[in-house]
C-alpha cells in the first residue's frame, strides 16, 4: 500500500529525515517509536503533504501512485489520513459543515454520489456512538473549546467519518486518560480491517497493548535504526532507546 524509499526531508533548511525506508502492506499496522525530535511528526507531515517540509530525495508510492507529487487534498481523496498530534481549531465552522465538505470532496473525487442529509446524519450518529461522543458536538465549531483529549477523540471521529485507506496516528494517545485511551483504541480497532493500514506514532507501549502492531520501528535522528515485531516495543519500554543507539554507533565505528 505504502512504499517509502530513501526519503530525505528538510525543515528550514535543516535535514530532519535522512533516508527513511519503509514498506507497509494492506492490512498491516506499523508502529514508530523514537525519542523527541527524532522526526516522527516530520515523517507524518511529509507523507500528508505539508509544504513547510521540503522533500530533498527519495520516493513514496501510495498504491503505486507517486504520493509526493500530489497536493494534500488529493492525498486525502486517495485515502490518506493523518490524526494530528496538535489538531487545529476552526472557529465559526461547525464539525458538521467541515465533515460534510470534506466527505463530499472525497466522494466526488472517487465518483461517488454526495450523501443525503439523512445518510450524513445517520453516519454521524453511528460514529459518534462508537467514540462515546455527544451528538451536540456536531454543531460545535471544529475543536474550539475542546479539551486536549476531546481534540484527539475528534481526530478519530473524523477518521471514522472519512473512511481512509491509510491512517497515520501521530501520538493520538498523548493527553488521553485511561478510559479515553480505551475508547479511542477501540475506535481504531473497529475500523481496522484487511483492506486498510495504519502507521502509529507513539511513545508508549500502553497504546500498543490496545492497538497491536505487526511491526515496530525505531526512528532516531531521521533514520529507522531498528525494526522488529511487537515485542520490540516491550523491550524499548523496559530499556529505553540508548542500547540501540550505542549498538548502532559501535557498528558505524567498526
Amino acid at each position: 500500500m505504502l512504499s517509502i524509499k530513501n526519503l530525505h526531508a528538510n525543515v528550514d533548511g535543516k535535514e530532519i529525515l535522512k533516508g527513511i525506508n519503509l514498506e507497509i502492506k494492506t492490512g498491516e499496522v506499523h508502529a514508530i517509536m523514537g525519542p523527541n525530535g527524532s522526526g516522527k511528526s516530520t515523517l507524518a507531515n511529509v507523507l500528508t503533504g505539508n509544504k513547510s517540509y521540503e522533500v530533498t530525495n527519495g520516493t513514496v508510492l501510495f498504491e503505486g501512485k507517486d504520493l509526493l507529487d500530489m497536493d494534500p487534498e488529493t492525498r486525502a481523496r486517495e485515502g490518506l489520513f493523518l490524526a494530528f498530534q496538535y489538531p487545529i481549531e476552526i472557529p465559526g465552522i461547525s464539525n458538521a459543515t467541515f465533515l460534510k465538505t470534506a466527505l463530499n470532496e472525497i466522494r466526488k473525487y472517487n465518483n461517488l454520489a454526495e450523501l443525503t442529509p439523512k445518510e450524513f446524519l445517520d453516519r454521524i450518529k453511528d460514529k459518534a456512538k462508537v467514540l462515546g461522543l455527544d451528538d451536540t458536538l456536531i454543531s460545535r465549531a471544529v475543536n474550539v473549546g475542546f479539551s486536549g483529549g476531546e481534540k484527539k477523540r475528534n481526530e478519530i471521529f473524523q477518521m471514522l467519518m472519512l473512511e481512509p485507506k491509510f491512517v497515520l496516528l501521530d501520538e493520538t494517545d498523548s493527553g488521553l486518560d485511561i478510559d479515553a485511551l480505551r475508547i479511542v483504541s477501540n475506535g481504531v480497532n473497529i475500523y481496522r480491517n484487511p483492506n486498510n493500514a495504519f502507521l502509529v506514532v507513539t511513545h508508549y507501549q500502553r497504546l500498543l497493548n490496545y492497538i497491536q502492531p505487526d511491526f515496530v520501528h525505531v526512528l532516531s535522528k531521521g533514520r529507522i535504526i531498528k525494526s522488529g515485531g511487537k515485542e520490540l516495543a516491550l523491550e524499548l519500554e523496559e530499556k529505553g532507546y540508548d542500547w540501540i543507539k550505542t549498538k548502532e554507533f559501535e557498528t558505524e565505528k567498526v
Partner: protein
Amino acid sequence: MSNIEHKSANEWYVSRFRTFEDKLNGQSKSFLHDIRKNALVNLAELSFPTNRNEEWKYTNVTPILKQNFIPAMISTFPKIKKEEIKQFLFKDFDYHLIVFVNGLFAEELSTIGNLPKGVIVGGLNRVTKNNPDSISKYINNLSKIDNAFNALNTAYSYDGLVVIVPEGMILEKPIQVLFLNTSKDDLVLSVPRNLIIAGKNSQVSVITNYRGYGNKTYFSNIITEVYVEENAIVDFYKIQNENDESFHIEKVQAIQKKNSVFNHYNINFGGAIVRNDINTLHDDQNIETHYYGLYLAHGKQHVDNHTFIDHAKPNCMSNELYKGILDDNSRGVFNGKIIVRKDAQKTNAYQQNKTILLSKTATIDTKPQLEIFADDVKCSHGATVGHLDDTSEFYIRSRGVPQELAKSMLIRAFANDVIDTIKIEPLKEQLNHMIFEHLHRVEIENKV
C-alpha cells in the same frame, strides 16, 4: 494644486444651495433651516480635509472632491418599485422597514407597521413638520461640524432616519433601514441626517443597510446622532454595501447617560473610498460601550475606520474589536482613540484590531490612540496584521478540502469573532454570505 480643487468643491456645493432652497417650499421657515444656513457659512469657510490633517493622514479624499455631485433634492434619479428593493433587504426575521432612496424618505417603499404608542420611526422632513418639538432640542446638538464634509451634510440636511423611543418602551422588533442609492445620469449626493433618541429605560435595535443600486458613482455623506438615555440599551448595526464606484462617509456621534449600553456594529463591504467616524461620549457613570467592526476590501477599495470613546466619567467600560480582511490592492486604516479623562477613575477600556492581508499588495495602517489622564484604570489595546495561517490551511486540506475552500473556511473563522456578537441570528448567516460574495470566494455555509 489640491487647494484649488478643494476650494472649488466648496464653491460648487455653496452654489447649489439656492436651487435647493427653492425646492423647500414651506420648509424654509423651520428650525432646521436655521441650522442649514449656519452650516452653509461653515461650508464656505471650512476646507475639506487633506492628508496634512492628522485625522485624515491616510485617506485622500481628492477623488471625491474632483466630482461635482448634485444634492439628491435637486437631482433626478429613477423611481424604484417595491419589488426591486427585496433583493437588498435582510430577511428571515421580523422588522419595521423604513426605506430611503438617495437619502430621501420613500414612504411607498416602507413598511413601518404598527408601532407602540409614542414611538416615532420616520423621515426627518416629515418629523420636522409634524413633531418639531420632539427633535428640535436634539438635532445638531451632539455633532459638531469638524470639517467641510460635516458642513455639507448639515447645510443640505433635509431627510434621514428619525427613531424616537420614549421612556420605558422596549421595541421588540428591530428597525431595518434601507438606504438605497441609485442614479441614471446625475452624480447624486445623498446626505441622510439620522437621529436616534432612546429614552430612559428604553431598548431599541436599528439596522442601517446602505446599498448601491446600479453602478453609477454617487456620494453618501451621512451624520448620525444617537442619544442613549439613562438605562437605555441601543444596538446599532451599520452594514455598508454601497457599490464599488461610490464614496461613503459617515460620522456617528453618540452620547450615553447613566447605566446605558450602546452596541455599535460596523460592517463594511462596499465603496471606493469609505470613512467612518464612530464617536461616543460617556456623560455619566456605569456606562457600557461595545464597538464591533468588520471591514472587507478588494480591488482598489479604501476603507478607513476612526473610532473614539470619550471616557469622561468614572466606572464605565468600553470594549472594541475591529477586524479586517483586505485583498488585492485594497487599503485599510484603523485609528482607535480612547480618552480616559481625569475624573474617569475605574475605567475599563479594551481595544483590539486584527487584519488579515490576502494579497501581497493590500495594506493596513493601524494605530491605537490612548490618552489616559486618570490613574486607576484598566486599559489594553493590541493590533495584529497577518495572513491566513498555513498550518490551519494544511489541516483543512489534509481532510480532502481544496485550497480555495480551505481559505474560505479560514476567512469565515477569522470574521467569526465579530459576526458571532451579532444578536439577530439570521443576520449572521446573511453577512457570512456577503463576505464570500464580496471577496469573490467560494462560499462556506454552516448547514447540514
